[in-house]
């Protein structure tokens, strides 16, 4: 099992150091600590295990260190900043693992940009030694790239000439979209194995600055401090330590305090139940901070995040995730209200951003997502956002005959319209109603009101509202039908239908770059017996099928 929970005391590959407003995150990969056998992580190359630690570090920097305003990404290897994803690892990994690995690394790079854009925790990359492939992509995720000018250190994306694949974590997109490198120069850059160093790297906008070795450390420090000065993060607040949520995993279920997954192996379904809060929301900001990691929305986000990652990596044959909620709508609304009220506070801001990122994880998950709104559910405000992240949602009209729970309701909040955008930059409701903008306004008018099935159907907020006579059959059929389809075509279909609306760097990375990469990853030119990825390191030359497709 791949476990996504870790903590700094268990890191094998990264070192965190703190000095006032500046933290340094140093990559120092232990070649022997690999996630799987069959490869060594030489030259600061990484596998999923290295990236799990990176993600953990990025999360902890945000939550545990409000005082940190600039994070310097550095390398302990004097010759190689980072060589990117380990090629041998890619060579021995299944296609599914490669794809999931790239997805997670992409999400982590995006979360670095989110920290910088929205948490005002800026990232500075101090490139000493060559940053190749994924190593440069890591740098690209930061706000400012400083490179030592020692005649050797370069940045490069050698995937095409060397490996016959693409830089898989946003490299191509960020080079032209974020750093706005001219396309013809980018074309050259991506075609030369050894990359670009020195002054030219600055002229082409591949890095922001090059500095001689002897002045490098000071210059990085100065720049980090200047970046820190622009941040609004507090200097006198205490961080929230991210202790791990209690979790039990068995073949039939995964249980967290606020979330439960049960598996129906016959229909290849994971039933995910989100449990509402058990007590009223804290009355003021101090109480939220006092609750810290136990503050319900944070606790739920962490559990859902871990659950998504666990299911993606370890439950690959599950076809559908069926998400329900269970709890008191008024208590949820109370939490939703304090989230909005204190959105300016650094910690509450972090919680909202975390929920936003977790919903985005759902968006890019290659599983069919269903939501069921049943009596006893609590799809309100930020939890209701799940309804708009899924492929289809069903709400019971009325009650079940053998239950005395009242009919289900949905309650929208302002967060469903603003504050939890998708990767395309707009809300899920706006994306949903791209063809009927008026419907967004109509839905907005219901903020704070309990909506029954009839109202919800009228507003178009769910897919269908069967009554209890049809419910069981309807749901069973939907799930069984899904399990019968080709998982590949479903992944492709869902990924296309989910992202209507504007294109952003993020949607390009997940939609275009990833899709091309996943295609190339399947092709003999890369992974065939004589493909470049398979032959890398042997000295043997790849034989390409010259047909352009």
């Amino acid at each position, binding site marked *: 099992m791949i476990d996504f929970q870790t903590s700094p005391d268990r890191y094998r590959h990264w070192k965190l150091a703190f000095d006032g407003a500046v933290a340094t995150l140093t990559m120092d990969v232990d070649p022997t600590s690999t996630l799987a056998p069959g490869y060594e992580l030489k030259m600061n190359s990484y596998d999923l295990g290295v990236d799990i630690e990176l993600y953990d570090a990025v999360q902890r920097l945000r939550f545990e260190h409000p005082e940190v305003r600039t994070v310097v990404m550095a390398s302990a290897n004097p010759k190689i900043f980072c060589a990117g994803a380990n090629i041998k690892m890619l060579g021995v990994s299944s296609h599914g693992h490669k794809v999931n690995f790239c997805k997670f690394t992409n999400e982590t790079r995006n979360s670095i940009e989110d920290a910088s854009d929205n948490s005002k925790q800026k990232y500075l990359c101090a490139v000493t030694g060559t940053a190749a492939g994924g190593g440069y992509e890591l740098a690209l995720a930061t706000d400012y790239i400083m490179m030592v000018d020692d*005649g050797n250190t370069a940045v490069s994306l050698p995937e095409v000439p060397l490996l016959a694949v693409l830089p898989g974590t946003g490299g191509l997109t960020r080079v032209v979209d974020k750093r706005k490198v001219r396309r013809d120069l980018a074309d050259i850059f991506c075609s030369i194995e050894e990359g670009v160093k020195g002054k030219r790297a600055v002229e082409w906008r591949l890095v922001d600055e090059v500095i*001689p*070795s*002897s002045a490098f450390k000071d210059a990085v420090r100065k720049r980090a401090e200047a970046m820190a000065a622009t941040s609004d993060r507090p200097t006198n607040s205490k961080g929230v330590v991210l202790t791990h949520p209690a979790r039990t995993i068995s073949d039939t279920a995964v249980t967290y305090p606020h979330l439960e997954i049960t598996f129906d192996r016959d229909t290849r379904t994971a039933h995910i139940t989100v449990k509402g809060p058990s007590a009223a929301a804290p009355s003021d900001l101090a109480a939220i901070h006092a609750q810290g990691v136990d503050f319900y929305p944070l606790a739920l986000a962490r559990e859902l995040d871990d659950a998504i990652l666990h299911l993606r990596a370890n439950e690959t044959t599950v076809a559908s995730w069926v998400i329900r909620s269970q709890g008191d709508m008024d208590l949820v609304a109370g939490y939703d209200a304090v989230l909005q009220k204190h959105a300016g506070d650094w910690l509450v801001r972090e919680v909202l951003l975390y929920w936003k990122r977790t919903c985005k994880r759902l968006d890019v998950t290659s599983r069919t997502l269903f939501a069921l709104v049943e009596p006893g559910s609590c799809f309100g405000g930020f939890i209701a956002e799940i309804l708009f992240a899924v492929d289809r949602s069903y709400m019971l009209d009325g009650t079940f005959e053998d239950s005395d729970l009242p009919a289900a309701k949905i309650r929208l909040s302002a967060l469903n319209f603003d504050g939890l955008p998708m990767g395309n930059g707009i809300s899920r409701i706006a994306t949903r109603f791209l063809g009927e903008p008026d419907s967004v306004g109509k839905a907005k008018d219901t903020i704070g009101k309990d909506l029954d099935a009839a109202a919800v159907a009228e507003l178009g907020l769910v897919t269908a509202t069967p009554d209890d006579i049809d419910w069981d059959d309807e749901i069973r059929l939907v799930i069984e039908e899904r399990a019968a389809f080709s998982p590949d075509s479903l992944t492709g279909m869902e990924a296309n239908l989910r992202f209507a609306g504007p294109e952003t760097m993020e949607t390009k990375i997940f939609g275009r770059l990833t899709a091309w990469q996943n295609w190339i990853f399947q092709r003999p030119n890369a992974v065939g017996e004589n493909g470049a990825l398979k032959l890398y*390191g*042997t*000295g*043997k030359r790849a034989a390409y099928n010259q047909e352009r497709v």
Partner: protein
Amino acid sequence: MSSINYAEKIPNNVNLSEDRKLQRALESWQPHYIDWWKEMGPEGTSTSEIYLRTAISAEPDGWAQFGHVKMEDYRWGIFLAPPEQDRKVNFGAHKGQDAWQEVPGEYRSMLRRLITVQGDTEPASVEQQRLLGQCCPSLYDLRNLFQVNVEEGRHLWAMVYLLHAYFGKDGREEAEEMLARRSGDPDKPRILGAFNEKTADWLAFFMFTFITDRDGKYQLCALAESGFDPLSRSCRFMLTEEAHHMFVGESGVGRIIERACQVMKENRTDDVRKFGVIDLPTIQRYLNFHYSVTSDLYGAEVSTNAATSYNMGLKGRYEETKIGDDHQLEQTTYSVLHPVNGGFQAIEVPALNALNERLRLDWAEDVAKGVERWNKIIAKHGIDFKLTLPHLAFNRAIGHFSDIAVDPQGKVISTEEFARRRDEWLPSQSDLAYVQSLMGGAVHKPGQFANWIAPPPRGINNQSVDFDYVRFA
């Protein structure tokens, strides 16, 4: 074709005058080279006339002429060994195809890198040795130092020619950078580690030319096999010059040993320092240092790059065409020593990936022969002492031995023990200070030699030992 045209600004045997573009490029590089030589070449020598050999032909017999020249006026030029009729690529995936007269597009960056790394070592060693003239032990040695220096300079020219002729703008930029990097400069270091070490005294210089220039020889031999014909021809001619450098090193250390042995015998003591000569244990520690640092120049024992450049046909093995195998190595393995559980184990790895190690072992064998010749000098004096080469895992900074600590006999020890006993095995601060203390004023009187080194048995080019090899203005 092979005679050298001295009427031109840049002497050459490559018909430079017929390639105006290339000629212009090289002529614009030339003044930068001269500036570099003035700044970083041998210190304080601009007016001295040195008895140097200058290449006048690329034919094996009679390729050099000797005469007194100022180094700045030395005719650095571009000489390639004569072309071989119908030469083929002799190894790798392209084996049997015609050798390339132009750079194959797909191998451009790999080749440029190989040439740049080789080229960078040439000016680097000139920089490392630039102060040695001020403490030369004799005019004979001073002349040898300068001969080595001007020829390293010419080897830079050879590589720069290839960069200019075949790699366009990128090549010209690399050529400029060769003059911008500086040995030991933290901001602009030379590419390879050993070329950023100091060559502070003459023992270090002789060790360097004996051991590190011998690495140069093996690298040049491997490149002389290249399927890229101009590189092959350049390296073949450079090898004729390189032999003298190794002679300077081997005979230099040999004469220091000779002198130490004389003093040991005359005074019946091992403690020769009080007589102002260098003791054999210090020579052993220098040997350990230079041998291990130079071992690192071969790169990782198991290497993707080595496999790739071989398979591409760009860099072969030592005496590739004399080896009796398929010259493709796709199915063969090679035994490479690995550190395993506190010891060593020979592990079979694909032969293609083991090429660095293989070249290193060829070199090590050659070094060992030289050490045996030194031991004969010691034995001739009836002294019970043998110089030995340290274990190949000793004091390594590159490759899979870099993570372990090993004593010279090859016993794996703790890093603490290594740190504690380092000075038993490698030159200590006091060793270096002692040898430095011998490097007093330069000996400029013809036929005179510093106390710590024996005179050579014969002079250069049949001249006598007391010939005025260097004339000062």
